[in-house]
């Protein structure tokens, strides 16, 4: 029996990755593998898609690669899958160096952004395709394919062709197909972006459920911050082919490493402040202790600086004697986002108010703004160029 058959023929462990090719039962079900990407470089002509990208994904972890268009996240995933070759760098899966392996020998399960089911095959045949390539006998691959379709809740649709399935169902079949080969790592390249909001949310939860159930290491590429924050164990924020920050969603949101991460992940306001002493600034009339993470070289008392503050860390109250004017409101369900024009600021400041208590917040009213939470960090008053700023 070949090593490939050995890991596929283990009935007791349907989803165990093809780590070592030991005989069935020799590995524990939790044999998920780590992924270590070191200093990857990949250029397309003069464009550097990956510029020294490094990342470590722990076993059974779901890592979200988050970044704006052109940040290199999809290239990183394709290099990991072997669909693109890196110019330099190294990729380890477990202890195995797969940097120079072709895609078909990497044992990576991949779900694509575009619908990728083979139109000439039924859902069952699609799921069984990878098993057919691995030369499993017909009854066995049919059984396994049915089990996987059952896992994604589509056992009744086994004999349907892709054109007879909805977009959400097609992506579920694609997920089952990727898992059927018991991949070392599951790669998801924006698998939800072609779906409508309701399906996207449901399928996102389902992907997470299945990933936890299977216990597989997964890398999920997305440009949707909400998606990344809600599904991932850790989020890696990318920009211009480099890793900006990696960490648990809450950590990245609350303690962004730099202005790019702060603006890309959620919204942030730039507030004018004055340095009083080291780690002490005055902002909106208040003295605030603050950590420096934005490239501030020295704390010179009296220096003009900027602090970044999340909208939820600003409080807005009606005050006809104030000079700040509320200029717009956006209903977000439970919250109301208001934009306030502040004298001396080029851009409005944004704040979040509970929708039920914000009946007074209509455009034109004068408001007072105060800090209700901690600022993210302080940085020099000059403006770095950001590829993505959100108000």
């Amino acid at each position: 029996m070949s090593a490939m058959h050995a890991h596929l023929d283990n009935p007791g462990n349907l989803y165990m990755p093809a780590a070592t090719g030991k005989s069935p039962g020799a590995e524990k079900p939790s044999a998920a593998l780590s992924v270590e990407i070191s200093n990857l470089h990949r250029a397309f002509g003069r464009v550097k898609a990956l510029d020294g990208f490094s990342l470590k994904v722990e076993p059974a972890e779901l890592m979200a690669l988050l970044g704006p268009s052109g940040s290199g996240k999809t290239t990183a995933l394709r290099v990991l899958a072997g669909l693109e070759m890196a110019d330099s760098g190294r990729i380890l899966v477990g202890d195995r160096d797969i940097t120079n392996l072709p895609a078909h020998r990497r044992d990576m399960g991949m779900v694509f952004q575009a619908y990728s089911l083979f139109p000439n095959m039924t859902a069952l045949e699609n799921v069984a395709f990878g098993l057919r390539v691995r030369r499993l006998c017909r009854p066995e691959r049919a059984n396994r394919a049915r089990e996987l379709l059952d896992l994604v809740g589509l056992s009744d649709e086994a004999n349907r062709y892709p054109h007879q399935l909805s977009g959400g169902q097609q992506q579920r079949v694609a997920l089952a197909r990727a898992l059927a080969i018991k991949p070392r790592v599951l790669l998801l390249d924006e698998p939800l972006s072609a779906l409508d909001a309701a399906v996207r949310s449901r399928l996102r939860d389902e992907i997470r459920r299945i990933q936890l159930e299977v216990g597989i290491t997964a890398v999920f590429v997305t440009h949707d911050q909400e998606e990344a924050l809600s599904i991932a164990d850790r989020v890696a924020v990318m920009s211009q082919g480099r890793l900006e920050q990696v960490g648990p969603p809450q950590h990245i949101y609350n303690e962004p490493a730099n202005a790019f991460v702060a603006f890309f992940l959620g919204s942030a306001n730039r507030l004018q402040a004055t340095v009083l002493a080291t780690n002490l600034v005055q902002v909106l009339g208040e003295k605030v202790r603050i950590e420096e993470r934005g490239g501030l070289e020295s704390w010179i008392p009296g220096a003009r600086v900027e602090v970044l503050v999340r909208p939820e860390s600003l409080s807005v109250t009606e005050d006809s004697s104030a000079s700040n004017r509320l200029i717009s409101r956006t209903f977000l369900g439970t919250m109301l986002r208001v934009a306030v024009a502040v004298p001396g600021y080029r851009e409005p400041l944004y704040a979040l108010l509970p929708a039920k208590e914000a009946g007074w917040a209509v455009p034109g009213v004068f408001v007072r703004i105060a800090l209700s939470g901690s600022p993210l960090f302080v940085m020099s008053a000059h403006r770095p160029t950001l590829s993505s700023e959100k108000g």
Partner: protein
Amino acid sequence: MLGAATVYFVAPLIASARFSFEGDHGSLSLSGYTSALGSHEFWSSLSLSVEVGLGAVALELVLMLGTSLWVYLHAPKWRLFVETLTLVPIVVPVVVLVLGVSGTLRFLPSFIVFTPVILALEYVVLAMPYAYRIIDSGVRSINLSTMVDAGRSLGANWFRVIFTVLLPNLKGALLGAGFMTFGLVLGEYVMASLLSFNTFPVWLETVGVVHATEAVALSVLSLLGTVVVLGAVAIVGSARAKDRLGERGHDKAQGVSTVPVGADQR
């Protein structure tokens, strides 16, 4: 208008059919058919045309499919150049094409240059503008690069991806290009005549000079043959469509609706 068009196209066919059954002194006769079908040269010329046609089809499909896939997957910048290049045989006169291709391929071994293989190669060039477009439109109609990536990530090598994923999904385009090339070869006269090969059209023309009834009888047979083949293709196609509709109908009968892509959505 439709009636006039029908008369315009059908009247000559009826007249030809009527003429093909004409015997001595205006009597009805099958002699035109029996004489033509009994001729050794008829079968040899037809056989030559079919062999050359099959060879041209095989070569055409391999070359054009390979080119289209290569352009689509690896060299999209070259698409315009390749499209323009494949149009050249349309604007170049056939005589120039024959001399050009023959001259260019003169370095090839004699078993190619002095045999019908050279004719097949000429026909590959002649059919290229049409075959390339049919195949290329088929390639563009499927999500090729994602399917290739999916196949490779599932462990299939290039050979397997092409034969189990791409070819089945390009079957329609390949059949279309193949039939078109084969039809072109069976009806082509000038190239074969210039290269002195006695293919079916060349023999038909020769026979027509002295035995007009036989030539017309064979033309009628050719036409009927074409109609039968096209009818068979249409029947097979509609049977498949019915199968698929039947599947959907069956699903609906079981209370499972067929939901179009992007509509559902569970």
